[in-house]
Structure formats: structure tokens, C-alpha cells
């Protein structure tokens, strides 16, 4: 047993962090929210060049995967930087498309970043269906290439654009979808949420160290400290669940990771908002990019209730 990221994985996280810090991600997020995808697509290409999407694509289709642990590492960084777009859905699509014909046709472009995918269960919202090049609809009968989408509906997270996919379309694979693809969706959402929580905590700690009232930093008050200590605790116990789930890919572990990471991220959001005070309640202040995403990710790819039910069902 060596339940530790290796040097290469830590370096990968570090390089993504550096890339996303230098890229000025918040500006791309705000443009994306307005339906201007150019900056976000440029960022997407750079993430593809760094190998992020290839981690979900098998080697025979010009990928490096599937490598769930490396994907989890990457998605923590994507969450920390609030990267917009159907990130989870693109790696899920890569895991859903198995048949050699469609795989050969669609996967190399997903790995290279030239094409962006969205995925939804039949009748559910697909993220960013308006810009996706590949729209997959997943039902009990199989995976279909959806012919189009309904108008965009706003999400509480302005960077998430919700669309319902039109029924019908080319059948890419008959029969129920491979469970590991849907587990990957849940795992990467959990990792992304963990990253969102880490960013919220980091920004809030920075804020309470700078902000003074009554002549001292507000971060010296015990009521403030203890809320932040609780936020750190929730994240530090969600992190090993996320990485452990990536190692085992067992349904109960993935469900546990999802519910814990999303609860932790949401608790961090509430704490971040409260400790920033009124400035945190403004859309203009960048904290809002993470505050709203923490809420949205809770219900994406498995509500807390569904995840808890899966934990109980697997325990038997």
C-alpha cells in the first residue's frame, strides 16, 4: 500500500495549476457565461495539450487512458480554477463510446481537444449542449448521438448552460451504458467539487487575513477560525475518498466521494460567503464563480440522496 500521489502526479497537478493561473481563467468564465466561448475553447485546447482529455481516451484511439487517478488529480485543479465547460461530460463521453466505428470517428478529436462533448440521461439537462460538437443521450436502450438541443436554460452557476437534448439520433451503442463510464462522471464531478472547495477555502483564508475590523485581522477571531477549521476538515476527509474512489472505482466508494466532496464544497461556499460578508454576495467579485458552482455540482451526476442510497445498497 502506498496511498500517496507520486512525484509525476504532483507535478501534473502543479503544471495544470500554473497553466490555469497564467491563463486568467475568471475572464474566460465570465465570457462563457455570456455565450462567448472563444476564450474558453482556447483554454480547452491548452488543457487538451496538457493531456487532460486523453486520460479518458483509450490508447488505440490516440489517448492515454483510462487513468481515473490522474483524471481525479486533473479535475481537482479544474475545479480550483473554476474552468468552464462540459469537462466531466467530455471525459464521460470518451468512456461511453466503445464500439470501434464510433470510437475511431469521435474519440481522437475529444482527446486532442478539437471537439467538445456533452452527455445526459434521456430527459435530463445536458451541460453546454449549445456549444458541444458531440451530444450523447444515454438511455436504457443505448447511447445515441442526439440530433439537437432545446433552448438554453440558465443555471444558478452562470457558467453552466443547461440544455435538453432532442430525442432520437444515431444509435452509437445498443443496450445499457457501461457502468464505469457513469462512475467516471460521478468521480470527476467529485474531484471538481473538491477543487472548488479548496479554492473557496484558500480565497477566504486570504481574505480574513487581510480584512481588519476593531483594529485586528478578522481571521484572529475564534468564531472565524473555527468555521475555517471545519471547512478544512471537511475537505481533508473528502480528499482521500476522492482519490480512493479513483483507485478502486467501486460504486460505493465513488458515491461516498461524490456526496462528501460536494457536501464539503458546499459547506466551504457557505463559510466563504459568510466570512467575506457583503462583498462575497456580489456577482462582480470573483468569489461568485466558485460559490455558485459549489451549489450546482451537488446535484450533477448524482444528488446527495442518490449517492447515499448507493452507499447503503452496496453495503449489504
Amino acid at each position: 500500500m502506498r496511498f500517496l500521489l507520486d512525484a509525476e502526479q504532483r507535478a501534473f497537478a502543479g503544471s495544470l495549476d500554473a497553466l490555469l493561473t497564467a491563463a486568467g481563467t475568471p475572464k474566460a468564465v465570465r465570457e462563457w457565461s455570456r455565450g462567448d466561448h472563444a476564450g474558453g475553447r482556447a483554454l480547452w485546447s491548452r488543457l487538451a495539450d496538457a493531456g487532460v482529455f486523453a486520460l479518458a481516451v483509450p490508447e488505440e484511439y490516440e489517448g492515454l487512458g483510462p487513468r481515473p487517478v490522474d483524471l481525479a488529480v486533473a479535475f481537482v485543479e479544474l475545479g480550483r480554477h473554476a474552468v468552464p465547460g462540459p469537462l466531466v461530460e467530455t471525459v464521460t463521453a470518451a468512456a461511453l463510446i466503445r464500439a470501434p466505428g464510433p470510437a475511431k470517428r469521435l474519440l481522437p478529436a475529444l482527446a486532442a481537444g478539437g471537439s467538445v462533448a456533452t452527455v445526459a440521461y434521456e430527459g435530463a439537462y445536458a451541460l453546454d449542449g449549445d456549444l458541444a460538437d458531440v451530444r450523447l443521450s444515454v438511455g436504457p436502450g443505448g447511447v445515441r448521438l442526439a440530433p439537437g438541443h432545446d433552448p438554453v436554460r440558465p443555471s444558478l452557476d452562470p457558467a453552466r448552460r443547461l440544455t435538453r437534448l432532442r430525442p432520437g439520433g444515431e444509435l452509437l451503442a445498443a443496450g445499457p451504458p457501461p457502468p464505469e463510464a457513469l462512475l467516471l462522471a460521478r468521480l470527476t464531478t467529485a474531484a471538481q467539487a473538491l477543487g472548488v472547495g479548496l479554492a473557496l477555502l484558500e480565497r477566504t483564508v486570504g481574505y480574513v487575513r487581510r480584512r481588519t475590523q476593531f483594529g485586528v485581522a478578522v481571521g484572529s477571531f475564534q468564531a472565524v477560525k473555527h468555521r475555517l477549521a471545519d471547512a478544512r476538515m471537511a475537505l481533508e476527509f473528502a480528499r482521500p475518498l476522492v482519490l480512493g474512489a479513483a483507485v478502486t472505482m467501486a460504486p460505493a466508494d465513488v458515491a461516498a466521494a461524490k456526496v462528501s466532496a460536494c457536501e464539503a464544497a458546499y459547506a466551504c461556499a457557505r463559510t466563504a460567503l459568510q466570512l467575506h460578508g457583503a462583498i462575497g454576495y456580489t456577482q462582480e467579485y470573483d468569489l461568485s464563480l466558485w460559490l455558485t458552482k459549489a451549489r450546482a455540482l451537488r446535484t450533477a451526476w448524482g444528488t446527495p440522496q442518490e449517492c447515499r442510497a448507493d452507499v447503503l445498497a452496496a453495503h449489504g
Partner: protein
Amino acid sequence: MDLALTREEEAFRAEARAWLDAHVPAVAPPSLETAEGFAAHRAWEAELAADGWSVVDWPARYGGRECGLIRWLLFEEEYYAAGAPGRVNQNGIGLLGPTLLEHGTEEQRARVLPPMARGATVWAQAWSEPEAGSDLASLRARAVRTAGGWLLSGQKTWSSRAAFADRAFGLFRSDPDAPQPHQGLTYVMFDLRAPGVTVRPIGRLDGKPAFAELFLDEVFVPDEDVIGAPGQGWRIAMSTAANERGLTLRSPGRFLASADRLYGLWRAQGSPPESAARVADALVGARAHQLFTYAAASRFLAGERLGPESSLNKVFWSEYDIALHETALDLLGEDGERADTEWAERYVFSLAGPIYAGTNEIQRDIVAERLLGLPKGRR
């Protein structure tokens, strides 16, 4: 990055499980916080030790198997999964033992550890005083130099297990003129039956004498029972306090077994949906604690020292433990009020968790100041 066990580790786990299957008493002994239960638990320690299972991670010459951290964690998982009795000598084997292994002399280890390992000497802690709780460094009980040793005087309190234990260990002020409160403290071991010691048991919330007050009046302690150099007690105590809060006080095995029992209770009560989320959270929390501990153990084995993150761990498991037992009592319905169930005993025990080994308020201060880098403020 992996969670795989070697074939040797799997074999060790199987050997532990087989021994426990054959030896764990079918009927649990009475509460270890009673005279009768204390004796039964002491006998159980001897039974464990006879086959080398009481202190599996210790060096062989003191009664262990030198099995290493990972196998110790596996042993703990098997131990609690088997429903084996609580460890009456936890203070000794989990706290004083590691302190002696790190800071004791060879003579002290050879003399103290083997009888500790077989439960012949059961240890109590003597840290808190009536005026020194969270602010432990303000303690006032004295150690005064005398020929060949020290004379201890003063009062200790909340001394866990002291009602029935044989010996105790703790900090005493040996240099009242030291410039800082945490300087001039000395770490000593003493006999609870020595002349000058008065033990007054204290009933915990359910009335059982789980701890005691100690009144010390010029109790002689020979030099050989001082651990480390006189005046260095604080540093020594803190180096093993991280152990207590962190890896070794509450192993994941305990909570995995508790969560599994809770799940069984929930099923037996007809899987009431209104409790499903709390039961699921107990399962999730136990797995989180297990994986958190595996990660910490992996870092430790890679040569890192574990620091203030042990404070996160202590807050997590102590609050987790209470929530789990509250869920169990709620599931029991009107029987949740009964005092004579195993759940009730464990519930009462869990309530102390956020208070001992450094209150959770102190732990949150440590997390905020040392992990998050927030400024010190008024407490």
C-alpha cells in the same frame, strides 16, 4: 498510488482473524469502568499477550511482533470487526508505550513495557488539574528534588482509568522559576498505591467511575521513573500527543466496525427511510477515516512527520463517533433511553471524545493557526 496489500499482509490479516475468531469471548465482559469489568478486561489483555497479539507493532523484545504500521492498522480492523473487548490499557500501550519507545532509556523500556503489554500493569493518565485543563501548561502540581528522586505534591484530576489502575504518568512542575509556563515541567511515572497518593474516583455521566481525582502529598518517585531530562516534559508530552490525537488513539477499525453495527441495527429496524441518510453518512465517514489514515500512514512511511493534521483527525473522529451513536439511540426508539444496552455504554463513552486529548476548540485553534496560517488571537 495504490491500496493493495501484499500477500504477507493478507496472510497476517488472516492469522489475526483466525486467532480472534477462536478467542474473542462470545459474551462481552462487563464495562471496563467497573471493578469486575476492569478485572475481566485485564485478564483479556493477558490472553492477547500470551499469543503475541496485545502490542503487535512493538519490538519483539517487549512483547510485540514488529509488524509495522500497515499491519497494525489491519490488526485493528480485524480486532474491532471481531467485536473484541475494549482495551483497558489504551493509555499505556497507545501513549506511554510510544513515549518510552521514543524518549525512554533501555532500562525503562525493559522494565515497564513487558508488564504493560500483558496487562499486569495498567496505566492511568495524570495531566489535567482543577485549574489546568485546556491551558495544560499552567499546571501547578510540583516535583521537588530529593535524594535519589523527586517528591510529587498537588492535585490531578479527570485521570482516566485511575479508579482501578496500577500506575500513572503525567507532567509535574519541577522548576517553578522557569520563564515560560511550558518550561520547567518534568514527565514522570508513579505508583497509584505509593504512600502519599489518594485516589478519589469520579462517576462519569452514567455514574461509572471512569476517572478519578489524585491527591499527591510528597509522593516519592525515583530518578529511574523520570522520562527524558527533567524540565523537558512538555516537549516529550507533545511529541506523543500528536500520536494520541492522530493515528493511534482511535484506529479506523473501530469506526468501520461501529458503522457496520449501525447498519445492521438499521436493517433490523426495517430500514426506516428517515434514518437512511444518517446511516449512509456513518458508512461514508468510516471509509473517509480509514482512507485518511491510510494516507497519513503512507506519508509517515515515506519519512514525513505527522504534525497539526492530527488535530483535524481528532475533531473528525470524536464528532463522528457521537453522531453515529446518536443515530443508533434514535433507531432504537423507546429502547434508546435504556442505560443497560451496549449502545448506551458506547454512547456515553463517545460523549467524552470532544473533551479529552485536548478539547475540540483547542484542536480547531491549532488547525486555524498552524494549518491555515491565521493569526493568533484571544481565546
